[in-house]
Each structure stands twice: as structure tokens, then as C-alpha cells.
């Protein structure tokens, strides 16, 4: 009887180990499957003609998958991501106030991308660019 019980106990443990192993073997692929993240396109270079961007003006564009903005300041051009660093809404350029303002939580950035007021934790990320002839190449 005692030997029978031992065998039953052993089989229980064995079944548990096999069952858990089978579950574990499935859990990993399931985790990888569910949490697979497609990499967003970093995108090719975006070109903007200089002529279409007089001083003081700005133009919305998309670099890779990221909405961006190029601004022609008195000191030159600057290109930012428009994605607010607070919660991901898109900032808008307010020419009259010379500021970038997020409509969601009123995060305000200056034209260097620095946070002036509101809850954004970081400045707006900048994109590299170069002026080539009469065009601006971004990214």
C-alpha cells in the first residue's frame, strides 16, 4: 500500500513537472508572439525646398513615422519632432507667440525646443539636417 502511494506521489510530481514544462514551452513563444513590436520606419531623407520656407514660417512634415516641423528662425533653420514629450500629442507652431504649444495639457516649448511651461519632462527631440543648395535635407 505504502509502495503504491509512493508510486502515485511520484507520478503526480512527474505529471506536474511535465505539465509545467509543456506550459513553459508554450508560454515563451506566446510571450514573444504577443509582445512582438514592429520597428517604426526611420525613413529616408526628407527634402524641403528653401524657397517655400521664408523667415518666420514653419512647415509640418513626417520624418520616418514621426510627425516633425521645420521652422525658419532669424538665426537659421531648426527641425523638431512634433510629438510632445508629455503624452504624445502633436505640438503646433504659434507664429504670433513664437512658441510651440501642445493642445492636450498645454505644454509650451520655445523655438529651441526647450520646455517653457507645462508638464513635458524633456525638450522636443531635434532632427539633423543640412542645407544643400536650394534644398534642406532632413534625417
Amino acid at each position, binding site marked *: 500500500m505504502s509502495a503504491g502511494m509512493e508510486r502515485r506521489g511520484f507520478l503526480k510530481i512527474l505529471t506536474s513537472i511535465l505539465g509545467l514544462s509543456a506550459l513553459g514551452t508554450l508560454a515563451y513563444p506566446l510571450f514573444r508572439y*504577443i*509582445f*512582438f*513590436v*514592429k*520597428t*517604426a*520606419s526611420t525613413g529616408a531623407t526628407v527634402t524641403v525646398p528653401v524657397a517655400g520656407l521664408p523667415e518666420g514660417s514653419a512647415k*509640418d512634415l*513626417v520624418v*520616418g*513615422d*514621426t*510627425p516633425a516641423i521645420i521652422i525658419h528662425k532669424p538665426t537659421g533653420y531648426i527641425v523638431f519632432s512634433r*510629438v510632445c514629450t*508629455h*503624452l*504624445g*500629442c*502633436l505640438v*503646433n507652431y504659434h507664429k504670433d507667440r513664437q512658441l510651440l504649444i*501642445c*493642445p*492636450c*495639457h*498645454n505644454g509650451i516649448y520655445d523655438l529651441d525646443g526647450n520646455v517653457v511651461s*507645462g*508638464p*513635458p*519632462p524633456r525638450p522636443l527631440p531635434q532632427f539633423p539636417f543640412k542645407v544643400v543648395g536650394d534644398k534642406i535635407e532632413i534625417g
Partner: protein
Amino acid sequence: MSALRKWLDIRTGLAEPVRTSAAGHRVPRDLVLAFYTLRMVAFVAIVVQIITGIVLLFYYVPQHQYAFKSVQVIMDQVPYGWLFRLIHVVGSNLLVTVVLLHMTTAFFLGSYKKPHEFTWVAGAFLLLTVMALCLSGYLLPWSQLSYWAITVLTDVPTAFPVVGKFITQALRGVSGPVSDATLRRFFALHVGLLPLLLILLLVLHDGVPAHLRYRRRRGGEPVISTEAVAVALYFIAMFSIIAFFPGLFLPHDAHVPADPLKTPLHIRPEWYFRAPYEILKLIPSKFLGIAVQLVLVAVFICWPYLDRSRERNILKRPLMLAVFLATITAWIVLTIRGTY
């Protein structure tokens, strides 16, 4: 009819469980019956959401090129499509209202106290699941309103170091902004995983601890007729909103297709998320704003284990009454602030 019932009962044995869970539901005479009707209304509201949700699936297309248009087709072309969609939209808001009221009355009456702690915890998770269902469903019409609400929501985890970015990307299904991958992911959650979770939590909340409930006690008031009145009121409220205020839960941006390059001005979430949304505005630190809310949610879930007092009557506990009233007031004030 009686013969059919008997025939069915011999083969299923359902007569007794149905009698004890519905007709046999009794509450103590000294309590206000209306408080105990909300569980039945919540149950009916969930059934209404499931039925209308399935009906909407006949025509909805979960792809970003077609999602908005398919919803327009449901509203404008499919016979009575507008009716089923409005029932689903209004019903989701009523469901949140009913579950919130149910939790509030449970708190007020001290119904979470021993031995009902587990019922409260399951109920709290049920409320969170209902809200997750509302949020996941929010993206499906692929409107400006839905796109930007989900953009803000899925950006919330980035406040947390190390795992935050991973969670955001896992929710969106892509390392960039909200996209078609997010729509499909939310669709799977909305029609697959979350309804299953909801049913499981309903069973845990209402089924497993049933033996602890008043219904098993002798005596008391039968509550079924009051429940019927409450369910009727639920349908009156729903069809009044559909008839007289059909745009109440569908503002202008809900009728504009999603534009990933333009955040609408004056964006705001649904009424039940406006208080948390306002807290994010008021607390200057993103991490702190979100961490505070997570702590509040954890306190809400674990409340039966934090409040160890044996006294159920909140009117005999001035401090608890003050906390209760302050919480309700703060929530209402923040919601109004977020609305105007």
C-alpha cells in the same frame, strides 16, 4: 410551460440555481432595497453590450483604411445600424455609471467587510476591466477622438523608467505612433480577451462567494421586483439619451476620421477618465502624476484589507465619512474642471 420547465430541469438541474440567484435574492429588511438592484442592472448592461457588440461585428472592419468608413456604413446605410451602435455607445457609458454607483454604494454600506473582501476585489477588477473595454473600444471607430485618446493613453507608461517604453510599444504593437497594428491589437482585446476576463470576474464576483450572501439567509425582503424596476429605468435612461441626446457621447471629433498629423484642440477623454486626465494636468511631474494614480488604484483594490474596523455604518465613523465625501467631491470637481 411547467412541463417544459420540469423537462429542462431534469436534464440541466438549473431550476434551483436560477431560483436562488434571481428570484430567491433577499436582502435584510433594514437596508434600502434600491442599493441592491445595481448588480442586476450591471449584469443586464453587460449582456446588452455583448449582444450589440456581436451585431456590430457583422459590418465593422478592423483595418485603419476601412474602420472609420465601416462605422459610417453602420450608421448611415445598414438598416437600424445607428440604433445598435448608439445602444453600444450609450450602453458602455451607462455600464460604467452603474458599476461606479455599485462600488460607491458598496463602499458606503461597508459591504466590503469580512467575509466579503474577495467580492470587493473582484468587483474592483471588474470595474477596471469595464474601463479597459471602454478604452479598447474607443479606438475602433478610428476617429480623431479615438486616435488621440489612445495616443495619450498608450504614452502614459513611458513615465516609468526601464519597462515604460516596452509597455507602450507592446500596447501599440509598433515602436512608433498609434497605427494599424494598434487597431488590430485593441480589436483583439476588445472582442476577445477582455470579454472573457469580464465573464470570469463576474463569476468570481457574484458566483463563487454566493454562499456568503444575504440571499442564503432566511427572511429578508425579496428584491426581484425592485430589480425589475431598476432594469426598466436603465432602459428608459438609455432610450431617452438615444432619442433626445444622440450626440451626448459622440462629440464633433468622433465624426472626423483619424488624422495622425493633427491633434484636435481641446482634446478630452470620456467623462469617467476626465478626473485622472485633470490630475495629469495639475501635477507637473509626469511620473508623479501617473504614480499617484496607480497608488490610488492599488488602495481602491485593496481597501477591504486596509480598513480593518468592524463598524459597517459609515455614519458612525466621521473620519471615514469625511474621506468618502472628499473623494467623491474631488472626483466631481476634477470631472467638471476637465469638461469646461
